[in-house]
């Protein structure tokens, strides 16, 4: 995973609530067995059916920060949604509230999710609608979002922040605790079910 420290780019206002992962990328794109190249599926229904969908507008075509309404990433656990956003050029999503699995997947894939209060999201929407070229900086080190003369702090749990800053792989971190896993396994009750052999 790529480390994330700070990112500056332009931002796209997605004035919608409950953007579920089926909208971020529909099921038909999930049949692929590779991990890259999902940008063609990103918001494909809205991009196809709604000519003035925000990402169809040239002024937002190169945005790398997505600013959405509450409950972003609800529904299916598909990490393809996170991959599609990354493949589509996004490094950060800002929303007042994220679905748990989406947020969790983001930290694994290297996409930063930033929770800001609704009023701050509204202010940011207004600013990037007034000036789509406005640079927005998301600084994970300093835990703040800056645009124009505005700076808004955000919170993220320190462990996730550290992992993102270092770009660390979870499996590698867990493997350091193999002894603990073995000790735990030695004490599991014998009647716990096993899938093998098939009965």
């Amino acid at each position: 995973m790529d480390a994330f420290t700070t990112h500056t780019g332009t931002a796209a206002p997605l004035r919608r609530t409950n953007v579920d992962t089926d909208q971020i990328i529909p099921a038909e794109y999930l049949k692929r067995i590779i991990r890259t190249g999902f940008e063609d599926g990103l918001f494909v229904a809205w991009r196809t059916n709604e000519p003035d969908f925000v990402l169809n507008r040239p002024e937002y075509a190169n945005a790398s920060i997505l600013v959405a309404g509450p409950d972003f990433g609800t529904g299916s656990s598909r990490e393809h949604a996170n991959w599609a956003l990354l493949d589509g050029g996004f490094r950060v999503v800002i929303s007042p509230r994220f679905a748990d699995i989406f947020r969790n997947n983001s930290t694994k894939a290297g996409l930063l999710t930033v929770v800001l209060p609704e009023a701050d999201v509204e202010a940011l929407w207004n600013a990037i609608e007034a000036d789509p070229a406005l640079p927005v900086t998301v600084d994970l080190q300093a835990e703040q979002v800056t645009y124009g003369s505005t700076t808004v702090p955000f919170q993220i749990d320190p462990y996730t922040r550290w992992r993102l800053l270092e770009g660390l792989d979870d499996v590698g971190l867990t493997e350091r605790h193999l002894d603990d896993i073995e000790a735990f396994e030695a004490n599991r009750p014998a009647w716990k079910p096993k899938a093998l052999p098939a009965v």
Partner: protein
Amino acid sequence: MPKTLAEKVYDAHVVRSAEGEPDLLYIDLHLVHEVTSPQAFDGLRAAGRTVRRPDLTMATEDHNVPTLDILAPIADPVSRAQVEALRRNTAEFGIRLAPMGDRDQGIVHVIGPQLGLTQPGMTIVCGDSHTSTHGAFGALAFGIGTSEVEHVLATQTLPQYKPKQMAVTVDGELPPGVSAKDVILAVIAQIGTGGGQGYVIEYRGSAIEKLSMEARMTICNMSIEAGAKAGLIAPDQTTFDFLKGRPHAPRGADWDAAVAHWSTLRTDEDAVFDAEVHLDATALTPFVTWGTNPGQGLPIDARVPDPAEFADEGDRRAAEQALEYMGLTPGTPLREIEVDTVFLGSCTNGRIEDLRVAAELLRGKRIDADTRMLVVPGSVAVKAQAETEGLDRVFTEAGAEWRGAGCSMCLGMNPDQLKPGERSASTSNRNFQGRQGKGGRTHLVSPAVAAATALTGRLTAPADLIGA
């Protein structure tokens, strides 16, 4: 310290905890399907890792599988490649697979309980958000992403933070024709699609205790639709009776030891929940959704809402967008909404009891001439059981299509899809835009409402049929 049921299960699986770090949680069972696993297996291979506990891992083919011609190779080459990738991966890493045509094949959340692999007090994960289904047995079961699938394959653990605890208490007797599906749709409408975010929900109360295991699974299944990490129900005699004798349930002295342990899995009297929600079962009616998220639901007696009446601006905009997509006019009675297709199936309502309820309403009748009804059992075993009971004939004689097992039109990854503009009454769990096919419009309903709707061609409560 008094604990909730979910806390007891969580605490019993902590491998390691350290200040300032997530806990490392042991996973008792890892269920795998073809869609969210290929990249995880690739990750293992790239890092030269193996699967730590193939014996605690079980795979099946469900999302892509056709429900017609199920013994022929899959026609769609991309779907076929994905299923073949799962076959290769499970063979290479020594994981048990229930492939198409196998007696154990079916929707991943149907086969776990059916095989007795899902048991009280376990931690269960799957790269699938409806893993919460298994919580019906008093297990802590939740959906994960593909990176986490890789993590569990490699280590049989997951880094986790202890979730917050919510109690949803449903007391009283459910009126006739009102089912578990209506209960959970009412819960989601009440707390919203983000209401459970960060929580594990424990469903309790006299109405829940009276439910069958199938009905409990329906409720826990849709916990994710309220944004919750998981949903669970304390195991009791109903749970033990369901499990006894299943292929992977403990036997003999092991059974007694297991039941003794399972019987301790209840929330302590003085345990404190971070949030509590109450519902009066006696006041519930059949529930249907009108919008494009599962929280946009109302009793079937209601009318399509007017977006102008929503106080919150975000809700108003969401309602406007939903009605436009759904092609609905505010003020229309929900009962006047005509559907093209009825889908009975999915991990929410594709179990034997769901098929029985629907078949009872259809017995000896014909569905509406302009309506198509698809009946898709949740697993090969459910299909076989239904055929033993003659339910397949009830459905086909009523004019419905009887199909092979799989996810089918729940998400339309196989050929079972709505066409643009087509409207369905569906017993699945998501009414998202395009979920059942591009441009398709979904109303979520219970199996009883699905059957009643198939008979009239309009959204219909089972009680409406009496005297009709």
